[in-house]
């Protein structure tokens, strides 16, 4: 069994308004940060998982992302995978 560290990034789709991102952008500008064109907030999920090789682990992570971690009506996801 190989062990992998997976980082899943879940982001609101570009077409979905992100009011929390807008509020944080506004606060960032009040803090004096210049040049911010866009600020959107997502989630990062860290998973340690074992399986027989990368392909099997990718299958499991794809299922988790599609069925649980992200709601694809409003969110997109991507992930990176590192063998431990």
């Amino acid at each position: 069994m190989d062990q992998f560290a997976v980082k899943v990034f879940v982001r609101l789709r570009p077409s979905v308004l992100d009011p929390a991102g807008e509020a944080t952008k506004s606060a960032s500008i009040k803090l004096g940060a210049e040049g911010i064109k866009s600020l959107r907030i997502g989630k990062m999920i860290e998973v340690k998982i074992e399986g027989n090789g990368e392909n099997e682990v990718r299958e499991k992570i794809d299922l988790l992302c599609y069925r649980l971690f992200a709601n694809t009506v409003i969110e997109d996801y991507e992930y990176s995978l590192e063998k431990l």
Partner: protein
Amino acid sequence: MDNFTVGVVVFPGSNCDRDVSWALEGCLDIRTKYLWHESSDLSDVDAIVLPGGFSYGDYLRCGAIARFSPLINALDEFVKSGKRVLGICNGFQILTESGFLPGALVANKNLNFICDDVELDIVSSKGGWFNNGDEKQTIKLPIAHGEGRYHCDSDTLKKLVDNELISLRYKNNPNGSSFDIAGITNEKGNVLGLMPHPERACDETIGGTDGLFTLKSLILK
């Protein structure tokens, strides 16, 4: 009709289950039964209410974890059989997360948790959930939510409009919902999800009775 029983689902974090039961039993004399979310036996209930609250603490996304409970898994057969399911607030969020209704509910545009009475236009009486006479009907119901902004893509919205699946629209959109949507049904009409709380508008002494019709319609066949 004497034995007609409405199942009121209880998740960890549900907090409108008792309100729904009170409104059905106390105001409408309809028998209710609490259904713990780990139960998958729906054989002795004739309709189901998914009440409001914060199932599983709204972790990950509202309704996202509740979707995987044994009870929601069993709901598919129940819905296919034509029996009626009403999702209120968090119940609506669970119905969209689990795919019984299209779209999703996301954070209110102004990020406020909104607790207020709102005026709603009855757009469609599909499924018989609302009393829609010849003239345009307006009702007033309470809302209480932080994530009630209905969102869907333009194809889904067109389908909702074309098939008369939009039941309720806000008169003064409080949360930024697409097309002012406050409640929708599935195509068959036996599943309704709405953000307003009809169970909190079932007695004049607490501010109105506009919610009675919807709860009463649970007993329609």
